[in-house]
């Protein structure tokens, strides 16, 4: 590398992480999080309210040696991300609800061939840019076939940055698509964002194989493990097929092979659920009523908690950083300890069903749901709780 090349590389490195305090829009925080995590490929198709992610990427990525692609449609974007990932890239795409519909086959492929991919879904109401959390089920169950999806639900602009970094790290560690479930509320909001120094941001890279092509088996892994990666164009002759394949990557119809594949791929995630699906407890030590929320709805829950605490009510909040894989242990624990567990979400009531299942009739449960294009106010949560009867 010449002197000029070295200078260029240094400039690109310094330009990658914008350490400091910012007043930044959520969509741009995603861009900065991706860059800080090492993203070097982005493909996206225009859609509101996710455009700032594409626009930010188109400006920032080429300046740090990455590639920006505006796909001809979402099918191109998601599959270009899969292709780039298998070629070794840290690749991302972003869209809003209607565009997410088109991602399913690309996600199904990413799951099957174990390609690290990061996908941002800025949830919006049908055709309009109002706030909602109505995609909470689709982001898990959208693609066909057995799978376990990793979905992170940030609540703030700061978390849009932090969780995007984490999404890349989880994608690389578990070789799987990871979804950042954003929302209009936070995506278009500007807030205080603190970007740490580069060496304080943990960055995980996929494990490349140290084996020779003669001994390497592309889909060989421990029981609930993740295979080592070889990538394209390096002489490992791997078939990355969506079809059922054995450890060699050969397309096989054998039921045993099929079962092995579709046990390990979801299990590599579900068996590490407690590590992946982090939760935050707010004043839960002595709480008898728990408000459970993910994404932006955590914010009014915390305001409502403070108001109820002022009135002497023992209320806490369980914040789910990662709605999928479902944080089974943390939620079923509520069933044992609480009198009342209330799910607060910005849709007609979807994830609430999972919470209620995990509490399995051991405590009273309730739902505060609405789909009016607006985040709940703390007062609305208070009113709904009053309707549920006594709150201790």
């Amino acid at each position, binding site marked *: 590398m010449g002197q000029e090349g070295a200078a260029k590389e240094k400039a690109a490195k310094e330009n990658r992480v914008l350490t400091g305090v910012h007043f930044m829009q959520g969509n741009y925080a995603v861009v900065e999080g991706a860059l800080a995590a090492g993203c070097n490929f982005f493909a996206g198709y225009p859609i509101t309210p996710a455009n700032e992610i594409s626009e930010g990427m188109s400006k920032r990525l080429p300046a740090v040696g990455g590639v920006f692609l505006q796909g001809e449609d979402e099918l191109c974007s998601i599959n270009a991300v899969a292709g780039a990932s*298998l070629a070794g890239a840290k690749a991302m795409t972003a869209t809003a609800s209607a565009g997410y519909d088109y991602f399913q086959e690309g996600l199904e492929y990413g799951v099957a061939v174990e390609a690290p991919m990061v996908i941002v879904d800025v949830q919006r109401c049908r055709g309009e840019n109002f706030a909602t959390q109505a995609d909470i089920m689709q982001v898990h169950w959208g693609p066909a076939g057995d799978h376990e999806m990793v979905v992170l639900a940030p609540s703030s602009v700061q978390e849009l940055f932090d969780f995007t970094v984490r999404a890349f790290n989880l994608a690389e560690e578990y070789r799987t698509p990871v979804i950042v479930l954003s929302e209009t509320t936070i995506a278009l909001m500007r807030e205080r964002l603190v970007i740490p120094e580069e060496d304080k941001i943990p960055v995980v890279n996929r494990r490349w194989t140290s084996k020779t092509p003669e001994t390497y088996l592309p889909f060989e892994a421990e029981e609930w493990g993740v295979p080592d990666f070889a990538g394209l164009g390096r002489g490992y002759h791997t078939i990355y097929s969506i079809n059922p394949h054995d450890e060699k990557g050969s397309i096989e119809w054998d039921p045993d092979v099929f079962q092995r594949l579709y046990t390990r791929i979801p299990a590599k995630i579900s068996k590490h659920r407690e590590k992946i699906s982090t939760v935050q407890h707010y004043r839960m030590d002595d709480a008898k009523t728990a408000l459970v929320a993910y994404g932006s709805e955590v914010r009014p829950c915390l305001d409502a908690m403070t108001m109820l605490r002022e009135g002497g009510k023992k209320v806490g909040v369980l914040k789910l950083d990662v709605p999928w894989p479902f944080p089974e242990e943390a939620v079923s624990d509520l069933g044992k300890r609480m009198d009342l567990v209330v799910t607060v979400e910005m849709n007609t009531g979807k994830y609430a069903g999972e919470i209620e299942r995990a509490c399995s009739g051991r405590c009273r449960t309730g739902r505060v749901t609405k789909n009016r294009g607006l985040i709940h106010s703390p007062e609305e949560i208070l009113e709904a709780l009053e309707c549920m009867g006594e709150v201790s």
Partner: protein
Amino acid sequence: MTAAPQINPLRKYVREDRMPHFFCPGCGCGQVLSSFLRGVDALGLDIDKMTAVAGVGCTARIPVYIKMDTLHGVHGRTLAWATGIKLHSPDTKVVVFAGDGDAVSIGGNHFIHAARRNLDVLMIVVNNFNFAMTGGQVAPMTPPGSVTMTTPYGSGEPPFDLCALAVAAGATYVARTATSRIPQMDLAIEKGLKHSGFGVVEVLSQCPTHFGRYALGSASPAKLLDWIEGICVSRERANSMTSEQIEGKLLTGEFVHKSRPIFKGSTFIQESPSDKESAFIEGCPDKKGECRP
């Protein structure tokens, strides 16, 4: 003393453990596979540094038998995958194997955009005139009036001219050939492999199991090859034919072979003079910079 058994020198490229292959007897896909390997061998390409991309369909199974990194199994998204691979690692040579349905039915949008961008991949389209793997349904290049599994009263679907479509959309190497013309097929694929930019080689091919039986009334590969020969007219010969004589025929040969800047991304920081050139719109009257990207 018996002579040592002769081994096809191309076997070194083949995944022996995947044999026997799954193509029907008399299918053209095996011929295309051989022709591709002859091209790789003749040009001395390093197959370790190449990647094959295939979607879904009979054609999509071709690279599964080659010792080569391969993406397989999502219908119609071959060029989307290839775009991601090429943009991230431009040094990896990428070859797409697609059937007619994969290429321009479900994958049609990607096809025209890859051509517009001059994505640096070779796409070999095996046109067997129907969706074969799914049982013989009508496809974008099925001849008008043909009986297929979904056109029992004859096809009312006007067909695409795939090569004309590729040329119009901006592909920089476009040729049509047929499994009935092995030397020409070899030449077209070899030239496609050498080409830098978006190359399309359409190979007219026989499907004895479905299209042959339903549309042409014969499952005989030889008869189907005769039928293909009958509808093929070389571009040179077509020059001296009347439009009535050309009606219903497919022209073979090369339709375009030119050079144009290859695609590097939707936007990039221009560093070298060649980068600057690639940012200009093609056909710009003044390439020196009158016309803005």
